């Protein structure tokens, strides 16, 4: 009897820092509750209850994160698997803020005749009788809310994971709900389903790369933890070939999520096909999580071999900026154009990433790469969601009118809406007094501080190319005549209105007084091991 219990005596329960992990647990817990709500609550109640649960969870999680930030005590939680450090907390905060806006957009029901942007019955064949019946009965998938919460939780975990295995699990946790959400568009369902399929296949493919990279790095270091890999690097024990191959494969997996060229090809198709609120959510939040994850892995675990990977990242940064901004010129669809613009923005972010301006390296006492990237992610995220929210409002009989030619003369039809969209575009273009400018300034100076001034020159030239296609849309909206069959501008409900207003307010404030957010990003400090 006692002999059988012996192994148990050796087992010590892992120490879990519940306080520090509370923001994550709240989100995941609420997601599980959401699933139960789907199972047990009658259909008419679900929308309201799910929305309430989601909003409350996101807000509570945000408040908890804020408390953690104030009483800052950097540490590795869950046996070193999760690192609750300054950058992680900052990322959680912006992820939660942007998710809140996205959730508002998901809940919007007044712009398409009382229906949400999501398919009533995803299982019904597009164009079939069943679909029509479902629409008539006002059936809708309220599962999107728990799915979103799972995605948000996964992103938070991804940005904080201090262990490659946790990194991979988090990646899957936030990717799988996104694949689903992409395929749920109410209008143009075939494109939406195609987008989901593409995203899933390519995503699975990139996950395989990531996993292979992890395996090789494990082979090199004998551990999955980022700190352990850094130690192995500094003692220089393993085989360099395995290290380099592992770094490369891991980089492919991460850059896929970031949308770096040449791993970007999924972006335009998926952004175009997905329901627009989901596109906004992905464009802002996925990019944030993926970028912080990328920086954490490369700075913490592979910082010691920076001279091996930095040259490759230089090339990728240049390619991403150049391809993103040049190919965007040829786009004729608003959503695809914004997709390429998001690729170009990833390139700008990469310049700061490869600038490697770190506080510890004693190069200077100015802005650091981490600070710059975190700030840029904020200044990019808000206008992005705002811009996609505007896209949901320009509609004709077939749903959203996303073809650029349909936007001609919008400034005449609705000066306010066109003006707001123009402002978002100016922010993307990096015109001063907008969030985009301060963000660009921050990443460029971080890049230059780290000695990557050629990247800065390429970046300003690509900014010019990018400015061209943003301005072209402004010209189209304001300087073209309004055609007779112009699309309507839907009257938004409070959800979309507040999403646009929040995006606009953030863009203005970050352009005029970026100081507080910059300081907050500076206080986040560096990634810890």
């Amino acid at each position, binding site marked *: 009897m006692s002999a059988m219990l012996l192994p148990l005596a050796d087992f010590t329960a892992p120490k879990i820092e519940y306080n520090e992990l509370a923001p994550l647990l709240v989100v995941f817990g609420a997601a599980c509750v959401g699933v139960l709500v789907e199972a047990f609550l009658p259909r008419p109640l679900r929308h309201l209850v799910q929305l309430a649960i989601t909003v409350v969870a996101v807000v509570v999680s945000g408040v908890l994160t804020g408390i953690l930030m104030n009483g800052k005590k950097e540490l590795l939680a869950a046996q070193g698997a999760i690192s609750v450090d300054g950058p992680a907390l900052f990322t959680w905060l912006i992820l939660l803020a942007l998710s809140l806006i996205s959730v508002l957009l998901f809940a919007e029901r007044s712009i398409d005749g009382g229906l949400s942007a999501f398919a009533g019955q995803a299982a019904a064949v597009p164009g079939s009788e069943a679909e029509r019946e479902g629409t008539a009965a006002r059936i809708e998938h309220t599962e999107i809310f728990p799915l979103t919460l799972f995605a948000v939780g996964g992103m938070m975990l991804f940005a904080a994971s201090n262990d490659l295995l946790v990194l991979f699990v988090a990646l899957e946790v936030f990717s799988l709900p996104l694949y689903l959400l992409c395929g749920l568009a109410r209008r143009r369902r075939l494109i939406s389903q195609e987008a989901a399929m593409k995203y899933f296949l390519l995503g699975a493919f990139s996950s395989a790369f990531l996993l292979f990279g992890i395996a090789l790095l494990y082979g090199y270091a004998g551990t999955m933890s980022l700190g352990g890999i850094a130690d192995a690097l500094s003692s220089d024990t393993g085989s360099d070939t395995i290290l380099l191959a592992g770094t490369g494969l891991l980089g492919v997996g991460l850059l896929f999520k970031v949308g770096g060229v040449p791993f970007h090809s999924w972006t335009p198709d998926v952004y175009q096909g997905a329901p627009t609120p989901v596109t906004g959510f992905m464009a802002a939040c996925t990019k944030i999580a993926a970028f912080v994850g990328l920086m954490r892995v490369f700075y913490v675990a592979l910082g010691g071999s920076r001279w091996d990977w930095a040259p490759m990242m230089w090339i990728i940064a240049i390619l991403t900026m150049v391809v993103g901004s040049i190919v965007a010129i040829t786009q004729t669809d608003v959503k695809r154009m914004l997709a390429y613009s998001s690729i170009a923005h990833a390139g700008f972010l990469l310049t700061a990433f490869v600038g490697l301006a770190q506080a510890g390296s004693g190069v200077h006492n*100015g802005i650091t790469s981490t600070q710059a990237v975190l700030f840029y992610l904020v200044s990019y995220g808000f206008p992005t969601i705002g811009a996609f929210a505007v896209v949901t409002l320009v509609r004709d009989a077939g749903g959203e009118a996303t073809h650029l030619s349909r936007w001609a003369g919008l400034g005449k039809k609705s000066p306010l809406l066109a003006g707001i969209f123009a402002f978002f575009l*100016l922010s993307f273009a990096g*015109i001063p*007094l907008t969030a985009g400018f301060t963000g660009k300034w921050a990443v460029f100076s971080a890049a230059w501080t780290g000695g990557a001034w050629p990247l800065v020159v390429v970046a300003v030239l690509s900014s010019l190319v990018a*400015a061209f296609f943003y301005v072209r849309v402004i010209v189209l909206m304001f300087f073209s005549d309004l055609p007779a069959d112009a699309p309507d501008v839907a009257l938004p409900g409070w959800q979309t209105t507040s999403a646009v207003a929040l995006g606009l307010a953030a863009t203005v404030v970050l352009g005029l007084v970026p100081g507080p957010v910059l300081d907050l990003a500076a206080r986040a400090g560096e990634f810890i091991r």
Partner: protein
Amino acid sequence: MNIGWLTLLLLLPFVGAIATMLVPKAKALTAKQVALGFSLVTLVLTAIVAIGYHRNGAEDYAETHTWIKAFGAHYALGLDGVGIVLVVLTALLTPIVMIASWNDASHGRWSEKSFFAWILGLEALSIGVFSATDVFLFYVLFEATLIPMYFLIGGFGGPQRSYAAVKFLLYSLLGGLLMLASVVGLYVVSAKAGEPSYLLSDLMKLDISQNTERWLFLGFFFAFAVKAPMVPFHTWLPDAAGEATPGTSVLLVGILDKIGTFGMIRFCLGLFPNASEWATPVVLVLALISVLYGALLAIGQTDIKRLIAYTSISHFGFIVMGIFALTSQGLTGSTLYMFNHGLSTAALFLVAGYLISRRGSARIADYGGVEKVAPVLAGTFLFAGLSSLALPGLSPFISEFMVLAGTFSRHKVIAVIAVLGIVLAALYILLMYQRTMTGPVRDGIEKLKDLNAREVLAIAPLVVLIIGLGIFPKPVVDIIKPAVDETMQRVGVTDKAPQIPVTEGQK
């Protein structure tokens, strides 16, 4: 006493712009009156500031507040001799343009009130640009001026206005973004030296290595050369000025382009003195090419507005030449030139605008014998033309002479060739006058009305100033001189001593 005069000066037109937009659409006249009122109050306030500056010096007007600590950026405004002259020019031209373009915006793409509101917005930003003493603030305002100008060209111009507006914007952005790279570089240099700061006074103390200084200089200079504009980055100007309304063209050439030459003095010479000296030969040659090429192209133009745009390219060549001659006479002359060119080009554009609005065509070939039908119009046109070709007795003559004399003392060959520009100027102005105003009266011209009271009112202050400063330029020169001396000291060059010493007898 410092009560934030410059902030007030900057805010007033801005508030005016908002107030103008708030007037209901139906009351276009009220909106225009509100806008004009605000611009006149700004002018009065500017006059008070200018007089105060003349009496008490610059200290009373400096304002410094930390803006973005992490970037080392400040909200810092201040005046020097060059800045105040251009602020006055801005405040002066804005109401004049408004009166002259009173009805020009009625056929625009948007409401008339937005035209006037954009003008006020541009005035606010321009005053900010000329008084910013923090590089970051300057850059932000420098780029921000593009937005009102873009909408002024694109919203209210001729048939090709969209194209012209986009071309203007892209050229300016190209320059601006390369300057951004240099601005970022300055931050890095400043951060490495200690606490990052963008204040001009702090940056001037920096010790920048030779190579870095040259690269940073090039970034700034390129932006200013596009703005000014210098050959070969000039092609946007004829399109923009040709398509925009005459009022917009005045603001564009008279004020906005001055930011380029102003920036060369304050930032290129002020922050990168050694690199500026290093670049002198190339810049002077480019300036010379601008003078001659601009003048030659002006002669060949068939469109009145494009012709005036090319004359400005030639004039800007003179200004840049005077700046980079690096003599106090040349620099003073260039600053004075900026002011005088603002006056004379404004007069020329506005009178040409009057002419064009009557006939509905900007082609020179469509006119002839105007002086018989509308003598006052023809007379002011001749006057504006003569001031543009720097007739002695009118104010542009003095500045052009100073620029050439200043250049001659250091770079004889270039100055001698540049004198050809004066000959060509006489050619392009007088040929245009001859073709449009003299000769037999052309079809469609017979019924041409002469200037009305409003139009005369707009031109009158320009005429008075051009004659007045032509005879007695001392007040303006006195304001400019100290700032120029300071810049010269910064660059570390002294004027060459005259080769013929002043002897006792001559004294």
